[in-house]
C-alpha cells in the first residue's frame, strides 16, 4: 500500500492541472455539502431550542375537546385543571376574536397566560399592570402584519361563553422578538385572570404547558403531548428541507465523482502504454489496479485537505458571525431567526469526509478493474480499444 500511495502521489503531482481541477471541484463540493448540512443543523438546533423555550416547554396537555389543528374546537375545548401545584404548569386559555387596528378588522387568536409564569420565555411580565387598560403583548411578525406598534391602544372583540359579542381596548405593552411563528403570527397574548373574567370562563384553560418538575400522571380530561411529539413536525420540515437541498449537493457530488470516474476511465485507455510499462517493469496487475484506485482515492484526500485549509477558518468565521436570513424568509410559518448560526460538528465533518473518500474510491476502483483483464502486450502497443 505504501508503494501505491508513493506512486499515486507522484502520478497526481506529475499530472499537474488535471489533478488540481479534479481536486478543486471535489473540495468545492465537499465544502458546499458541509456548509449546507451545517446550516440546516444550525437552523434545526435554533428552531428546536426556540420552540421549546417559547412554545413547547417539556410538553403540552390539551383539553380533551380542544384540538390545536381544529379551529372549531376552540369554542368548547376548555376545562379546569385539577393539579395541586400550579408552579410547574402554565395554563393558557385560547379564544377566537378580532382586533381593530386603525379601524381595520383582523381575526386573531386571543391567548390568556399568567403574567408570572417562568416556564416559557415569552415576556409575560409585561402583562402585569395596575392600570385600568388591559396590557397585551404581541410578536414582531404580527406587529408588522397588523401595523400595530408598542404603546398602541387597540380594540379587541370576542364572543363570551353565551355567544354574545364583547369588546375591550387593550394596550400593547410589548412587541417581542421571537423566531417561533406559532406564538406570534395572528396572536395576542393577554393576562390570564382578567381574560378569564372578560370571557366568563373563570378557572378555565384550553391547554397547559409543563416543565421538567411536573409530575406527569394521567389527567382524564386532558391529552398529553410530549416535547418530542411536539417537535416532530418541525424536525420533519427541517429534514424534508435537508432532503430537498441534498439534491443539489448530490448533483454536485455526482459531477465531481463523474469527473474522477471520467479521468479514471480515460486514464485506463490513454495510459495503457504506461500500464503495459508498469507490468513489464514487474508490477502485478493487482498492484496496477491498486495504484489506479489509490490515485482516485487520493483526489478525494487531497480535496479534503484543501477543503480543510479553506473551510476551517471560513466556517469558524461563519459559525461565529452567523448568516443573516432575508426578511422574506422569516415570514414563512417556519421557525427561523434573523441570524442562523451554522453548526459544524465533528461527526458531520467526519461523515462527509467518509462519504467523499468512499465515493471517490469506489468510482476509481470500478474502471480500474478492467486493468486486471488487460493483455500487457496489447497494452504496451496501445492497441486496446
Amino acid at each position, binding site marked *: 500500500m505504501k508503494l501505491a500511495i508513493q506512486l499515486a502521489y507522484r*502520478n497526481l503531482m506529475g499530472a499537474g492541472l488535471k489533478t488540481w481541477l479534479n481536486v478543486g471541484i471535489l473540495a468545492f463540493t465537499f465544502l458546499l455539502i458541509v456548509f449546507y448540512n451545517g446550516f440546516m443543523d444550525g437552523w434545526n438546533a435554533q428552531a428546536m431550542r426556540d420552540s421549546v423555550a417559547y412554545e413547547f416547554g417539556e410538553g403540552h396537555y390539551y383539553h380533551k375537546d380542544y384540538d390545536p389543528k381544529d379551529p372549531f374546537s376552540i369554542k368548547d375545548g376548555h376545562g379546569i385543571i385539577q393539579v395541586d401545584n400550579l408552579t410547574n404548569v402554565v395554563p393558557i386559555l385560547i379564544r377566537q376574536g378580532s382586533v381593530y387596528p386603525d379601524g381595520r378588522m383582523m381575526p386573531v387568536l386571543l391567548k390568556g397566560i399568567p403574567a408570572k409564569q417562568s416556564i416559557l420565555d415569552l415576556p409575560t411580565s409585561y402583562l402585569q399592570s395596575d392600570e385600568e387598560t388591559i396590557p397585551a403583548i404581541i410578536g414582531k411578525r404580527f406587529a408588522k402584519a397588523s401595523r400595530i406598534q408598542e404603546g398602541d391602544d387597540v380594540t379587541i372583540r370576542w364572543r363570551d361563553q353565551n355567544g354574545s359579542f364583547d369588546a375591550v381596548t387593550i394596550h400593547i405593552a410589548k412587541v417581542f422578538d421571537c423566531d417561533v411563528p406559532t406564538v406570534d403570527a395572528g396572536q395576542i397574548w393577554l393576562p390570564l385572570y382578567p381574560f378569564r373574567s372578560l370571557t366568563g370562563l373563570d378557572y378555565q384553560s384550553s391547554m397547559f404547558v409543563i416543565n421538567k418538575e411536573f409530575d406527569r400522571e394521567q389527567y382524564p380530561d386532558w391529552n398529553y403531548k410530549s416535547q418530542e411529539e411536539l417537535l416532530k413536525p418541525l424536525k420533519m420540515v427541517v429534514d424534508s428541507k435537508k432532503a430537498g437541498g441534498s439534491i443539489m449537493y448530490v448533483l454536485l457530488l455526482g459531477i465531481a465523482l463523474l469527473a474522477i470516474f471520467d479521468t479514471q476511465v480515460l486514464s485506463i485507455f490513454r495510459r495503457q502504454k504506461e500500464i503495459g510499462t508498469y*507490468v*513489464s517493469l514487474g508490477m*502485478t*496487475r493487482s498492484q496496477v489496479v491498486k495504484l489506479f484506485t489509490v490515485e482516485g482515492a487520493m483526489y478525494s484526500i487531497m480535496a479534503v485537505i484543501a477543503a480543510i485549509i479553506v473551510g476551517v477558518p471560513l466556517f469558524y468565521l461563519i459559525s461565529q458571525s452567523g448568516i443573516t436570513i432575508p426578511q422574506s424568509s422569516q415570514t414563512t410559518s417556519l421557525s427561523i431567526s434573523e441570524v442562523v448560526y451554522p453548526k459544524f460538528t465533528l461527526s458531520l465533518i467526519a461523515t462527509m469526509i467518509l462519504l467523499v473518500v468512499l465515493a471517490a474510491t469506489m468510482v476509481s476502483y470500478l474502471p480500474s478493474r478492467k486493468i486486471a483483464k488487460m493483455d500487457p502486450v496489447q497494452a*504496451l502497443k496501445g492497441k486496446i480499444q
Partner: protein
Amino acid sequence: MKNETIITIKNLVKRYPEGDTEFTALQDINLEFCRGEFAGVVGPSGSGKTTLLNIIGSLDSPTAGSVHVLGHEIGSLSHRESAALRNKDIGFIFQVYNLLPVYTVFENVEFALMLQKIKASERKKAVMQALEWVGLADKHKKKVTKLSGGEGQRVAIARAMVKRPALVIADEPTANLDAANAHAILKMMKKLNTELNTTFLFSTHDEKVMTYLDRIIHLEDGKLIKDDIQSPKEYSL
C-alpha cells in the same frame, strides 16, 4: 559463467486467434541463449520477433512447447511469479522508450527498485550509478518529456540496467533514433554487456544493430531460418 545457459526454448509454438481461425506467430522454435550473449532476432515485420521476445520476457505465454528462462518455465508461471521474474531478472527496452511521462529521469530509473522495496538511500546510489553509465547523471532532475529521443532511450537503458538484470530484452531500440544516436546507444549497451555480463536480446531489422551483434537469429513467418554466430568486431567502446 559465460557459457551458462539461461534461456532454453524447445518446440515453441505461438498461435493467436484471428476471427474463426488461428494465426501462427511462431512455429517449432528451438533455441538456447547463454549468459552474456549479445544476440538479436532479425526478420521482416510479422516474422514473430517481438512475439518471441515477449514470451522470453514472460509478457506472453507459449501455446505449445516450453520456454525456460533463468530456471523458470514461462508457461507455468502465475501472474505474480512472472511479475517477480520481470522485476528482478529481466530489463526491457522498447522502441518508443515507454518512459513514465510525469516522472523525472531519476524517478523513471528508480521505479523498478521501488517495486523491489529497496531502501531509499540504496536506490539513490544505484540510480545515480545507472545514470552515470548512460551519461545522464546531470539530468536526473529533468522531466523525461524534456529530453531528446537519444536521451530518452538512454534513460530507458538505465531503467533496464539499474536492477542489474541477468537479461535485457530490447525491442527495436534504435528504430526511432538517428544514426549517430543509434551507434551511441548500441556502444553503450555493448559496453554494459561486456562489463556486467548481462545477456542482451534484440529484435531488429536495423542493419546498424546487426553489426554489433555476436549472434543473429533469422526468423521468417514464425519459423527459425538461420542461427548465425558472428565473429567479434572491434568497437571503440
